[in-house]
């Protein structure tokens, strides 16, 4: 009989033992995968949210812009170049923008702001700032009116906490005001009736209009229909000054952006800053956002942009964020390492016990003539087979949880959700779909098993046959 056949038979001779051993491997793999998926999912989401809402994955810039992001490092953007870039297989849109500093004034209040000029039709292909339009606002009047209606208790209480807050969509209303799923169909219409916010957005044909951040609007005490002044320094030192009527208010992630956000059409911005035909950067939207794809796209595009211009990746543009990501990742790795420590002991313990239990059996086999080497081989095979069984089960078991976590991530409500949103994060705890990290966890668990096997083999060789038989 071949060795592996023997091994296989051994396994099924004592089913209970086999299952227990396989179970320990199964749990190890299962927990490792769930935890890692969870960690990676959270980081991914956090950073992607920031990247997608602001810098995008790739940008076309003047070569000096990355070191000094001033208007004077802008460039003339050539429509031909844009079409060439759009021709790349991975590129979905090119959005030129002109961005610079200005002082915004309304009444007697002034605030330093970042003015971003983009063509709205174009912008909607990539950034979708329109999604951030304020749709609901809990003004004191709205809160009073809502309270007069019948609302679930929790929501009623939270109304007081969040008075004067603005919301961009129903999802955030639901999560922040703790509206349970059964209540949504009754409660949401009430909000639509009392708390809806009149808002507008820029169109490409507009001139003299601006869309501003919610925080800025509150600071300047200027709302839709009011006029703001923008002043500053334009290209090559020209004076920049203009009047703009507020057409819409958006709620941007991160207060630092929200308090300083002014969005004009590209033409208006060019006129304001005396920079005809220019852009400070062009966001390049891509379809495949994996690292490899981005780098390849960058290399391809680098060929066609020529001198004086450069294609920058989100990593180059967000050095600080990257640093933080790495630190987070490392701390996550430490946590997983600790988990593995615990898991390893579980596996060792089980294997050890198994060996102890079968001492008599081994002793018998050796005393009737089986070579220790052959015994070791068979046992090792047994353990590998069990290992694979456990791994397969672990992977299979984790998949439903991972997919569930991906499709319906854990959501927060109330204050917690609001804090997340304030900070620019979606209030969820998501999971990452199977990826190379799956392979890694499996490998590590198998390594643990290998160590356990090595130990066992050593034990076999050191075994004192006579004592073993008498066990």
């Amino acid at each position, binding site marked *: 009989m071949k060795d592996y056949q023997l091994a296989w038979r051994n396994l099924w001779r004592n089913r209970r033992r086999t299952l227990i051993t396989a179970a320990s491997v199964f749990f190890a793999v299962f927990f490792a995968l769930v*935890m890692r998926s969870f960690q990676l999912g959270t980081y991914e989401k956090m950073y992607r949210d920031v990247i997608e809402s602001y810098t995008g994955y790739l940008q076309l810039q003047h070569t000096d812009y990355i070191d000094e992001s001033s208007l004077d490092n802008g460039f003339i953007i050539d429509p031909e170049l844009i079409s060439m870039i759009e021709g790349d297989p991975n590129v979905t849109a090119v959005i030129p923008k002109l961005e610079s500093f200005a002082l915004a004034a309304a009444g007697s209040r002034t605030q330093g702001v970042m003015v971003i000029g983009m063509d709205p039709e174009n912008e909607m292909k990539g950034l979708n700032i329109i999604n951030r339009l304020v749709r609901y606002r809990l003004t004191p009047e709205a809160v009073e009116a809502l309270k007069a209606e019948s609302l679930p208790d929790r929501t009623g209480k939270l109304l007081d906490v969040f008075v004067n807050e603005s919301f961009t969509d129903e999802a955030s209303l639901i999560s922040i005001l703790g509206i349970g799923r059964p209540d949504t169909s009754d409660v949401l219409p009430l909000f639509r009736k009392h708390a809806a916010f009149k808002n507008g957005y820029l169109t490409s044909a507009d001139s003299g209009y601006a869309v501003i951040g919610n925080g800025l609007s509150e600071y300047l005490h200027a709302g839709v229909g009011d006029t703001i002044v923008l002043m500053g320094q334009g290209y090559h030192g020209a004076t920049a000054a203009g009047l703009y009527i507020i057409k819409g208010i958006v709620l941007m992630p991160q207060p630092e952006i929200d308090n300083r956000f002014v969005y004009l059409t590209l033409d208006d911005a060019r006129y304001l800053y005396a920079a005809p035909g220019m852009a400070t950067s062009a966001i390049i939207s891509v379809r495949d956002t994996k690292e490899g794809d981005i780098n390849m796209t960058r290399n391809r595009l680098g060929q066609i942009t020529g001198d004086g211009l450069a294609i920058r990746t989100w990593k180059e543009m967000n050095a*600080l964020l990257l640093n933080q990501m790495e630190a987070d990742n*490392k701390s996550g790795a430490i946590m997983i390492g600790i988990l593995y*420590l615990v898991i390893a002991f579980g596996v060792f313990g089980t294997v*050890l*016990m198994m060996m102890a239990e079968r001492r008599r059996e081994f002793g018998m086999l050796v005393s009737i003539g089986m070579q220790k080497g052959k015994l070791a081989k068979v046992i090792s095979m047994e353990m590998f087979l069990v290992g694979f069984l456990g791994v397969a089960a672990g992977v299979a078991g984790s998949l439903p949880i991972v997919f569930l976590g991906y499709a319906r991530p854990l959501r927060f409500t109330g204050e917690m959700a609001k804090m997340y949103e304030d900070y620019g994060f979606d209030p969820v705890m998501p999971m990452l779909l199977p990826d190379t990290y799956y392979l890694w966890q499996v490998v590590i668990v198998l390594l643990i098993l290998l160590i356990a096997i090595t130990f066992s083999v050593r034990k076999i060789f050191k075994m004192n046959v006579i004592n073993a038989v008498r066990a």
Partner: protein
Amino acid sequence: MITSIAWKNVWRNRTRSLTVIAAVTVGVFAGVFAMAAINSSIVQRIDAAVNEELSHIQINHKEFRSSSDLKNVIPEPERVISVLQNIPEVTHIAERIIVRGIASTSAGSTGVEVTGINVEGEEEMFTLKTRLIPGTGSYFGSETRLNSAFIGEKLAKELYIIRYILTEESLGTLKESGVPSSVVEKLKPLEDQRFTTEKKLTEALAGLLSAREAKEYGMMIREAAWSYREGSRIILTFLDADDNQTGAAFRICGIFRTNNDLFEAMSVFVPENELRRLTGLGEGEYHRIIARLADNDLTDRVTPEVKEALPGLEVMHWKEIQTDLAMIADYMNQIYGIFMALILAALAFGIVNTMLMSVLERTRELGMLSAIGMNRRRVFTMIMLESIFLSVVGGFAGMLVSGVVIAITGHTGINLVKYSEGMEAFGYSAHLYPTIGADFFIMLTVLIVITGILSAVYPARKALQLNPVEALRGE
């Protein structure tokens, strides 16, 4: 009787017992240490922010934060003080003047927030002075005729007050601290050349040193070249009470370094009476009153009390001012909770398996015991007791190990300086000093030991199901 049998059983099979004990020890260590590391990092950040930057409770005029107008002083500050004094948890109170302005040197100017403090009055409270970089001054201590200002390192760098010069002396220091002479020789052409920014120095180094040398010694060279002219002059400009532009020259009396870049770049501290004189504010007019409490955790309870007592003013909890800090603290707790849950589950399963195996291994022995008359309940109790012993021993061992490790690393610190740039930009120290509250420590250990015990239930029940006759016959 059962107890002593159980105890002897434990030590009879040393390998098995040790494995289970080890598993529990590792579990406790893992949970406690991870918690300590994460906890300390956040606690450090919060403490630093609260004590040095914010204080626990801030009281302003309702409009002050949104308009920073000089005229928005606190009405009836004496009443605020007396309210605060009546709260026993409040340990320190301070009143401040705050003005937005520009700081300039010949290198340029930048926007800052100038805070006028009562230097003697805040002697105990102003812990920011402990962040003074040695050699940059004596914090309002010296006797210059000119007004003094205490500023942050980031601001000093921006205005070229801090610059990088490789003097002969600093080159010598480099040699002494272990930089090879060959490398120091290469730096000779840069001697006494002034670099106004770190970047310019780094560029110059890149031209003279190899990539490897630059990476390895770059930081040390930068530190050695870091220099500062004591008593440098800085001009502060702001609008006075009549909306006229005014200002004066100040001498830097110290530079502080925190882990918060933004705070360092924006904050300038000057003596209160100087600022009052320049701005023309009246006696007893203040923009902000801050209160320090005996403990960070008291803030949740005390803030509402103060809010109620002072309805016309803006009373802010530090969590409301730095919401991101508060969020991170809570977020971390959540992550940790889930992590702990996973660890406990992994631990539980590991123990279940091991104990199960152990039970199966002892079928003959257990069968024997049943055969000679030990009733089921006793068998069950025996196995449970064994588990309890193992878990408790493991628990104590775990507490011991983690206690020692935390004590050591809490002292020497874990060095994450490689990621310091990202961490410090967000206000975190790159040196971790794991700490953990005593109550947490105990709670975790208890939790883990309980897990160990509960995990033994299933195997113990399995033991009961063994048929003594079959068991005796061997497997």
